[in-house]
């Protein structure tokens, strides 16, 4: 009887599979009927997750639908220039564009993007049964408007973590030398003082051992916005300065106008960060997010704040990294009280970055682009994508066996992201993101070169931000 029941269940399962599988498999070709041969063009920053979408998901989508995907993976600056100009001029060159979390508010303010929710409701035949917004992590909320409608399908999400050289931190000789010098155990830094101490120790250690080792990475490109981002998005929060130091209600940046961009805490944060340059490799002043990862992967720094999208390859890809199996992951060092603020939801300790693909209003192939966005948003493609780019946008991806396996090799980066992710936050919802960044950038650059002291730099940056916000009409 038991055997018979099993047979019935097997037959039922087979019948169910045979009836549903073709339906799912056929959805893409059915939905794409009439769109075969169409070419959709997209632009994104050249990052591991984007390159995976270009090299793996694009061809797979073409195979499933007959729609070709032309994918331009370029530099961050070019990606924005091209996408914004295309959408402003309404030229329709691109059918999908990369939307980083911090620029979505600018795009929404300008009504650049197609309302994906509304379009799918209008065209139910294009709605994939395997695309379900509820399966995404809460990161997807960044790409929704006030009504909850979706304007971008997340394709990457990660946190900027504190990476350290586990092999060095666990080396008995190193530990002993550290204890002898500072009277404390060597462990990942919990606060800025400890971090500086460790940086100083490893820089001296590198010098004395004749190796190319420094105490810390610093993302301090002295002519590139990457340095501004490290200051306002990664360092400021650890000192309790949120939203770039700009008051979200009055849009004031300086203390005099209700902001905190030139507050004592912000000045202390910038001074600490600039001070780290003395313990960083010489390439630090020309390092953006990519070079920071390369520096750490080359084994030239003992610790650093590194974007999570690079964590997996640094820890696992021995073709590109010399520190495979030697990487430790931890939360960034913070000032007292900051963790408590973050836990209570009143603050955050670091940057939760990521991006989505959206469809510009100017697109000439919106239907084909809608299918593409749903294709990349399916749960079934997420795990391998995560392995390639250490990015997670779906809750279920954390539990995938392959991702769990990689998690062990990356010292629990994914677990940290899952459990401590809520302590991190994306950029503030400012529609003037690029404009204010460009206003304050020259002063951060001058602080890096030593032309301005950190105090002066932030006083000038705050005044410039106030002036820019007034000029843009946001601050009355």
């Amino acid at each position, binding site marked *: 009887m038991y055997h018979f029941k099993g047979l019935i269940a097997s037959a039922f399962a087979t019948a169910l599979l045979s009836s549903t599988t073709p339906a799912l498999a056929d959805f893409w070709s059915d939905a794409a009927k009439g769109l075969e041969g169409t070419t959709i063009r997209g632009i994104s920053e050249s990052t591991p997750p984007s390159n995976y979408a270009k090299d793996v998901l694009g061809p797979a989508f073409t195979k499933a639908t007959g729609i070709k995907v032309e994918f331009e993976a370029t530099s961050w600056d070019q990606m924005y*220039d091209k996408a914004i100009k295309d959408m402003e001029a309404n030229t329709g060159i691109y059918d999908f564009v990369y939307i980083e979390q911090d620029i979505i508010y600018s795009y929404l303010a300008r009504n650049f993007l197609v309302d994906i929710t509304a379009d799918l409701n209008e065209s139910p035949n294009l709605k994939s049964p395997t695309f379900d917004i509820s399966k995404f992590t809460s990161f997807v909320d960044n790409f929704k408007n006030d009504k909850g409608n979706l304007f971008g399908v997340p394709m990457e999400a990660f946190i900027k973590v504190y990476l350290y050289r586990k092999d060095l931190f666990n080396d008995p000789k190193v530990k002993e030398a550290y204890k002898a010098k500072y009277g404390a155990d060597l462990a990942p830094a919990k606060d800025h003082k400890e971090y500086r101490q460790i940086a100083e120790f490893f820089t001296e250690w590198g010098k004395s051992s004749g190796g190319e080792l420094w105490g810390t990475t610093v993302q301090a490109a002295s002519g*590139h916005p990457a340095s501004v981002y490290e200051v306002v998005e990664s360092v400021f929060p650890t000192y309790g300065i949120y939203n770039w130091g700009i008051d979200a209600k009055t849009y004031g940046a300086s203390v005099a106008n209700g902001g905190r961009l030139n507050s004592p805490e912000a000045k202390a944060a910038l001074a600490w960060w600039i001070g780290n340059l003395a313990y960083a490799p010489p390439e630090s002043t020309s390092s953006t997010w990519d070079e920071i990862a390369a520096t750490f992967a080359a084994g030239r720094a003992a610790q650093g704040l590194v974007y999570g999208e690079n964590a997996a390859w640094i820890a696992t890809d021995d073709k590109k990294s010399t520190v495979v199996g030697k990487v430790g992951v931890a939360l960034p060092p913070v000032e007292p009280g900051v963790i408590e603020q973050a836990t209570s939801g009143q603050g955050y300790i670091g940057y939760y970055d990521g991006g989505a693909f959206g469809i510009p209003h100017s697109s000439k192939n919106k239907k084909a682009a809608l299918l593409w966005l749903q294709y990349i948003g399916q749960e079934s493609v997420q795990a391998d994508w995560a392995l390639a780019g250490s990015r997670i946008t779906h809750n279920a991806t954390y539990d995938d066996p392959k991702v769990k396996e990689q998690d062990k090799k990356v010292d629990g980066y994914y677990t940290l992201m899952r459990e401590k992710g809520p302590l991190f936050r994306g950029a503030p919802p400012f529609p003037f993101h690029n404009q204010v960044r460009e206003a304050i950038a*020259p002063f951060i650059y001058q602080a890096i070169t030593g032309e301005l002291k950190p105090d002066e730099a932030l006083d000038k940056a705050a005044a410039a931000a106030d002036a820019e916000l007034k000029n843009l009409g946001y601050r009355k």
Partner: protein
Amino acid sequence: MRSSSVGWLFLAPTLLILFVFGVLPFLYVLVIGFTQWNSFAADPEMRFTGADNFRRLVFDDQFLYSLWLTLKFAFFAVVSEIVLGYFLAQAFMRDFPGKGFFRTIHTLPLVIAPIAVGATWRLLTVPGLGPLPYYLNRWFGYEFNISRYIDQAFFTTVVMDVWHWTPLVTLTLLAALSSLPKEPFEQAQIDGANRFQIFWHITLPLLKPAILATVFIRMMDALRTVDEVWMLTGGGPGAATRYIGLHIWRVVFPKTDYGYGSAMSLITLYLTIVLCWMLYAGLVARRDLKRAD
């Protein structure tokens, strides 16, 4: 009348292209220069603001600094290129072993796109990893870091420009030197003039038109340099190499401040014209004036 119509017909395509790609964009920039237009402002619409942008420019420290920096860059680059180009042209006037090979190698930078020149120099000079900082440090103990030291960055951009464009000067002056009449030189030698006197009183005056044309071309190029420097330093460190072209690019593209950026472009164009006119007046008109006297 008929021949005149045919002439205009032949000229028409060129004039049309000039009008569409030269005059129309200029008029467009001229109009936008008198507006406030930032597509990410609270009010993203274009608003006529009269001469406000131009008034702002006069008090804009960053713009004025960029302008000063550009003039400094143009001065050092163009003077170095003319001097070096002249000596190289003189060298190529003589025969020496491997002359053909050296001339080809020397001309190669000219055919490289500016963005590739910037990338090459970036690879050469990237702190910590590039061969130039590495060997300067290893052999001379000199810390060369163009992303930290502003003077090093400035002079590296000058050297890069000199490396890229000196061959143009050399070729122009070589052509000019080749076409000089022999008689004045022979006569001067017979009269017992020394090398410097021949250079000062004969070569230089005869080369003046070619030098002047080259200076104009190179100066205008140097004043609008963007791509090479953008690739090499991105305008940094700090604002050390934020030349006017880069500054305008930052205002117009990342900041999307089209009105203000257009006003900057117009002022820069005006200053370039004035500078060229002053140079022309100083070097050519003065000579004509002397002749009239």
